[in-house]
């Protein structure tokens, strides 16, 4: 037997039962493993099929739980078929299922049957970011006061520390409008938006919040999240958007709970 790429304990060869299962669980074209039987010593296709079904159904269920809006938009049949392709191509590599599905949006973007919904992958990205924010570390969010206490001449060199839950998503489509119209139970009317949209995901107190933000504020927070100083991030936004309202943008981002601290001269100033 070939040693596993993970390397087994010294001198021990892997028993084949797990390899036999693993190679067949996600491939319905293969027969049951050779080392399993039913109660009479016969074949166990249907019985092995229970495990195969459990794996497939539970992983489709995991994706459905992470991407409920995507499911609502596509309908359950379409979603299940799409999810089945994805779990066979990209099964989970972590036992933490809430980490699954980070590749699902990229899969949707190239999924042939979803071509008529070019915005669907961006909606899925918002959903994945929502779950990232849900499980992100607890940190108190930055309030206005620490920022107000910074001397005016030091503001330009101030850096902002993004809250662990904060995610920024851009879309060439009105992904936020489509997401928010479908992320609830009420009937969905026609969505009139056509513009590209930026979406900010935060968890300011207890619950995850998803909001649309303006392109200029998005450009600034993208710079801030990348570690740029306020001077540089605001300067780039101002250079692109002549009517950029810097104080309003900062107040909006702080109110959204996008940050958990600031640093001046490299020293972090906690809330």
């Amino acid at each position, binding site marked *: 037997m070939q040693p*596993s*790429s*993970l*390397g*087994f*304990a010294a001198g*021990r060869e*892997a*028993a084949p*039962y*797990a*390899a036999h*299962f*693993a190679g067949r*669980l996600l491939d319905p074209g293969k027969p*049951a493993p050779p*080392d*399993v*039987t*039913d*109660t009479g010593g*016969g074949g*166990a*296709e*249907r*019985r*092995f099929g*229970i*495990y195969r079904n*459990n*794996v497939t159904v*539970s*992983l489709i269920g*995991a994706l459905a739980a992470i991407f409920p809006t995507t499911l609502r938009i596509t309908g359950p049949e379409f979603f299940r078929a799409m999810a089945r392709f994805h779990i066979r191509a990209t*099964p*989970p*590599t*972590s*036992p*933490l*299922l*809430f980490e699954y599905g980070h590749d699902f949006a990229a899969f949707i973007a190239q999924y042939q049957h979803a071509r008529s919904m070019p915005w669907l992958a961006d909606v899925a990205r918002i959903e994945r970011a929502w779950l990232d*924010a*849900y*499980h*992100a*570390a*607890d*940190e*108190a*969010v930055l*309030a206005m006061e620490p920022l107000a206490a910074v001397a005016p001449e030091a503001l330009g060199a101030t850096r902002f520390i993004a809250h*662990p*839950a904060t995610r920024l998503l851009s879309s060439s489509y009105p992904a936020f409008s489509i997401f928010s119209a479908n992320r609830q139970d009420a009937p969905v009317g026609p969505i009139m938006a056509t513009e590209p949209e930026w979406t900010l995901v935060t*968890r*300011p*107190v*207890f*619950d995850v919040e998803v909001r649309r933000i303006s392109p200029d504020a998005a450009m600034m927070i993208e710079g801030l999240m990348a570690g740029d100083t306020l001077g540089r991030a605001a300067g780039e936004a101002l250079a692109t958007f002549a009517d950029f309202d810097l104080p309003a943008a900062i107040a909006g981002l702080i109110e959204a709970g996008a940050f958990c601290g600031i640093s001046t001269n490299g020293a972090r100033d906690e*809330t």
Partner: protein
Amino acid sequence: MEPNNHAIGHRALRFPDYPIDGMAGTSFKHEHLPAILQQGRRQGFFEVHAENYMGDGGPPHRALSRIREDYPVSIHGVCLSIGGPQPLDRQHLTRFKALIERYEPALVSEHLAWSTHETTYFNDLLPLPYNADTLQHVAEHIDEVQETIGRQILLENPSSYLTFTESTMAETAFIRELARRTGCGLLLDINNVFVSATNLKTSALDYLADYPLDLVREIHLAGHATQSDENGELLLIDSHDGPVGDAVWKLYETVMVRTGPIATLVEWDSAIPDWLTLTREAAAAQAILDRGAVTDDRGARHAAV
């Protein structure tokens, strides 16, 4: 946000040491939290799947912390894959240890099963053959888990749908030997006993007669679904999506007569009912437990006389 938010973070908490012996409990589902808090503190415990609380923070930890203030909890691992041939995932084991330190559970358990092979996580409890080789590596895995977390784990018997040609030991003998070698305790899932016995055409009563009941520290009760194989033979599926079946209740009473009261979980974690329905199911288990406690008292009094 309140300035003292960090002060109520988990590091400052030390939870009460609530007893769990002889109590009936339920799976903890977040949608039930408001109803649980509204009813006020009652007898009972809650069991959670360890992996659902391995995120860094957020609402799951807030909900479990709140429950843990008022109740004992049981942490039930689903993904350690101790029944697999490959080494345990050290990173995952470290997360498991941290979770146990954080929530101070009354019970910690895992499955005689595997769920990861090489790098793929299958999200199912998959079976293994019972022989000298698998006994050796599963025992090593249990040793490693218990050494890492610094306490005993309870090992749960699986539900089976097929058998391995390479098995040379009965499941009961395999489990007894694992417990002898590692000092682990046992979680007896009576629904799994019934499901396996039906699927493999063996006797649940024979299984229980041969099973080391003296090592059981927790019992699982659950509902199952019904299918059939290609020969038309009845197959029961361990689905956890409905009330406990009559046959499982009967087996439970049989076990309770022999063991006396043991912490018992109603494991209903799929197609989850409302809180009232779940509490009724737990109350039915509690009634059987309390009957056993009365019998125990009488026995003790007789012994004293």
